[in-house]
């Protein structure tokens, strides 16, 4: 069953127009994507292609100008308060900028506990136990719970954001360039962890990135977006190299070699 379906989504941004005619940009045009339960769907494109707008529409942070976002078969525009509550619990997001996604004045314990407290009442001990459990899941330790965000590196903070996203046992996680700015070792570590989690819990991922190597390696299907339109679908790097889609070919061609090639 599809956990998420995008049905002909279009989004237009307007700009200017105070004194004259403003211009408008078609950020997204007729996007159709379906994410099945327990699967990973990738969205790839160059910067400015509309990838992040898509992520924001899925999360309900922006309204599409046309089309429907269906979560578990129900249009999110017609959600009741109860539906939203469930949606906010089951759909989580991790953004690229980890430092901008956490409150600098809060301890890690409070940061990770915040979503839990929004939905459940828990004793302090239980809460602490749960947070430490989550921290250990992402490879951090219990002493980290009482530290502040500035005491961590970018990679550690990104793992904290992932721990927070996992705190409500979500069914769908939107990863918007979540590993792009990390060091290679940590990228590999996080991707491996996310894959393991998927095998254990059957969570679905919508993986937004510009790195075709990682996306095709991680996801089951990948949609290529260019100028707001889905231009093609791929499943592997090899297929991408042979594609008819010029954008896809260019993305595949600029993948750097895994091994040194001597001439």
């Amino acid at each position: 069953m599809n956990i998420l379906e995008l049905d002909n989504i279009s989004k237009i941004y307007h700009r200017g127009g105070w004194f004259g005619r403003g211009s408008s940009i078609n950020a997204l045009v007729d996007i159709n994507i379906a994410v099945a339960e327990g699967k990973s769907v990738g969205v790839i494109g160059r910067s400015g292609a509309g990838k992040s707008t898509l992520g924001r529409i899925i999360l309900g942070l922006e309204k599409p100008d046309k089309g429907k976002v269906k979560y578990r078969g129900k249009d999110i525009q017609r959600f009741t308060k109860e539906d939203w509550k469930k949606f906010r619990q089951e759909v989580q997001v991790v953004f690229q900028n980890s430092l901008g996604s956490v409150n600098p004045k809060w301890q890690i314990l409070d940061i990770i506990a915040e979503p839990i407290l929004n939905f459940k009442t828990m004793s302090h001990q239980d809460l602490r136990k749960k947070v430490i459990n989550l921290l250990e899941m992402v490879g951090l330790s219990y002493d980290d719970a009482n530290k502040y965000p500035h005491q961590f590196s970018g990679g550690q903070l990104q793992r904290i954001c992932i721990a927070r996203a996992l705190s409500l046992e979500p069914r769908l996680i939107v990863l918007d360039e979540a590993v792009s700015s990390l060091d290679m070792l940590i990228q590999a570590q996080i991707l491996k962890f996310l894959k393991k989690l998927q095998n254990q819990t059957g969570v679905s991922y919508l993986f937004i990135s510009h790195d075709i190597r990682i996306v095709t390696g991680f996801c089951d299907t990948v949609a290529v977006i260019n100028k707001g339109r889905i231009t093609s679908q791929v499943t592997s790097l090899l297929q991408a190299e042979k594609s008819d889609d010029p954008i896809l070919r260019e993305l595949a061609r600029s993948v750097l070699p895994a091994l040194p090639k001597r001439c």
Partner: protein
Amino acid sequence: MSCGKTVLEINGLKVTLKSKACETKECCNKLPLVNDVSLAVSQGEVTGLIGESGSGKSLTCLSVMNLLPDTMVLDKGRITIAGSSLEEFSLADSSTKNNHLKNRTQNLTSQWRCFRGRRAAMILQNPMSCFDPIFTIGYHIKETISAHGLDWKSHRSKVDSTLCELGFESPNEILSAYPFQLSGGMLQRIMVSLALLLEAELLIADEPTTDLDVIVQARILDIIDKMRKEKNVGVLLVTHDLSVIARLADNVSVMQNGAVVESGKVEDIFHRPKAAYTKALLDAHFSLYGSNINEVLL
């Protein structure tokens, strides 16, 4: 690949954190940030320096340019550029250490000015922060070349041809643009053009493509490749991405916690890694290709 003369040689480099206590007590050796690093870059060759964040890669580069922050001190080691040793630190005599350093630093400041930019150029991770937002690109280029005693008018045609070479079709438009009007990839190419204009023999590229999208990254790496082939520039390439090393480097040094754990030819590092850390890096590198791995290894 041509085996030219050595442009840069680093021997036993050690960088430590300077603290107040260090001046009175002898505890300078407590915190080596970079410890006993030795490497060499030859003309027309690329030496890669790889390691995770915080392993001391960037500090090694900054030491070469004598641009270490005030809180750190180059404790030991010898850096030789194009055969002439610009600095030699032998600080065995700790009583005269501070005076010794101060005098040396003053004497060498002017020498460093000539050297930086002219013979060795550096490109950094975030090109946006390397430009002053209130001046045009043309002004930046003019300032740089006049700081090195070159005349703007007589070099004008060279500026145009260098910019064309780097893929800017109309140099005039670029020269009158402000830094914020250009993209990260374009600014990075401007940085490279400054190095080319001054005919630097050594290019230090510290994570030159980390913030850029994949297509732009491939383009910048092509340019660096062209520079070393056509202009015989020696390149010290710092990165955390093994695929950048695979694309460009001839020799590789692997750094961990401030020390070089392994160095050698790029093929040896990829096919016959010795250190456990190098093996872990390679594992991580291959796992990023995920299910594509069999295809890319063919």
